């Protein structure tokens, strides 16, 4: 019998170690819900098949044929969740599947689980959802092992809040030996330095938040009022692994429309499919999205880190390669 992941029988695939990791995954998901339910967040489920999957230049969506014409599987539930917030629900969260084509590797599956939440309570900012992120991850680790730590490749990582906040540009100066502005506007050079030099060194001993990303890489985020070339966007990294992406949300409908049109233009220029602009999302912003912050966190990666698994496929019942 073949030993390839695709070739083994179910009895061999669902060995006791995998079943144990799936139990841990289920327990972590219960804790996630307890964390948000306990803080007054409403759990919602928004549609997975949508009229626009998002216009990020580097995301490819699965097209779906429907009775209403072509639609797409979500690459993130962001548009729909912001509509819920605009509708008056100040604290909302969701655990759902998201879909991205052409992404497959030890940290990537074309279909993966996302935890996404928004906080529009009084005074909420990116700092609010960053604090919730570090508290959540520490709480999950404590519930599992009694202490706020995890182990990656035999190295202990201290998950206790607060996690250091480092500006992206400072991380580039330290780890890539130059300012990020020296590499931009050539985005490829920026990302090449990110994957080769910056990211692998992030969060080796404790997680870190990278903050203040270039404005061009955050279409749905508010810009820093003091430094408009930067977006109030953050990402958390643990052991070189990108765990989440959050920001202070853009609430200005006109500005949002202009940015989405710019993104459509960039996709057209790059020869990529140009997805529609989600009209109801823009209408919700026009009606009024309160100041808020949201974060999207990769659940498979989080479970992988907490359980010491080697790849996201090890914390899934059936990964893509076994379909």
């Amino acid at each position: 019998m073949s030993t390839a992941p695709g070739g083994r029988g179910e009895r061999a695939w669902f060995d006791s170690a995998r079943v144990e990791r799936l139990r841990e995954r289920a327990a972590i998901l219960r804790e996630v819900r307890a964390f948000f339910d306990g803080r007054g967040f409403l759990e919602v489920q928004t549609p997975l098949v949508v009229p626009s999957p998002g216009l990020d230049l580097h995301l490819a969506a699965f097209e779906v044929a429907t009775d209403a014409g072509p639609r797409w599987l979500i690459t993130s539930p962001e548009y729909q969740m912001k509509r819920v917030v605009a509708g008056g629900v100040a604290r909302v969260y969701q655990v759902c599947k998201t879909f991205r084509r052409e992404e497959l590797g030890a940290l990537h599956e074309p279909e993966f689980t996302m935890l996404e939440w928004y906080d529009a309570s009084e005074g909420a900012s990116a700092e609010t959802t960053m604090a919730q992120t570090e508290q959540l991850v520490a709480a999950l680790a404590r519930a599992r092992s009694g202490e706020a730590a995890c182990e990656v490749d035999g190295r202990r990582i201290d998950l206790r809040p607060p996690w250091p906040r480092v500006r992206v540009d400072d991380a580039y100066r330290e780890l890539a030996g130059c300012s990020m502005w020296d590499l931009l506007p050539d985005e490829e050079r920026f990302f090449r330095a990110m994957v080769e030099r910056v990211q692998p060194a992030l969060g080796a001993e404790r997680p870190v938040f990278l903050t203040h990303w270039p404005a061009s890489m955050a279409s749905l985020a508010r810009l820093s009022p003091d430094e408009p070339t930067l977006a109030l966007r953050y990402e958390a990294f643990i052991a070189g692994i990108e765990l989440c992406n959050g920001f202070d949300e853009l609430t200005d409908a006109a500005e949002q429309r202009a940015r989405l049109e710019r993104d459509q233009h960039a996709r057209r220029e790059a020869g990529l499919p140009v997805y529609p602009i989600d009209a109801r999302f823009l209408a919700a912003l026009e009606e009024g999205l309160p100041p808020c912050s949201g974060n999207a966190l990769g659940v498979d990666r989080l479970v992988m880190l907490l359980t010491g698994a080697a790849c996201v496929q090890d914390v899934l019942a059936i990964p893509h390669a076994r379909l």
Partner: protein
Amino acid sequence: MADTTDLRKGFKLVIDRQPYIVVESQFVKPGKGQAFFRTKMKNMMTGSTLERTYKSGEKLDKADTEERTMQYLYPEGDVRVFMDTTNYEQIRLSNEQLGDNVYYLLDGTEVDVMFFEGKPIGVTPPTFVELEVVSTEPGFKGDTSSNTTKPAELETGMVVNVPLFVNQGDRLKIDTRTGEYVERAKG
């Protein structure tokens, strides 16, 4: 033309006119960024390693390689002569090209010869070979469990560390992947 979707362990490609074999390849993609493959490769001629980051979708030059089983015949100065026993074609490889594999060649040994663009570039010997000890310090009777070792010279000129009980004239099983002693050959 190949592209980055072919970047799997064992894939062979040409870089600067030299053949490389992929040892490790990892898909990496920042959430809001471009996709890359971080790849570790080994030069099939020199054995040196190379790390490269390819942009997803980049075109690659697949190496034209072929492996053929051939028999080692004899040395000829600094080169070694091999023959394809199916068509009697002979090829020559220098000791430098063969590296440590020269130590595993005995008259008639069958090896896999790697060809790159029609030219031989190296060999893969059998995983295990049996070689005779031509000189070593005398063994100590009864000492079969000790952790201590001593050097022994084998018939091909190779020197390996062996347990103290090994004697001149013994035939030893050697692992050609590590160059290490495995056990005394039976019979």
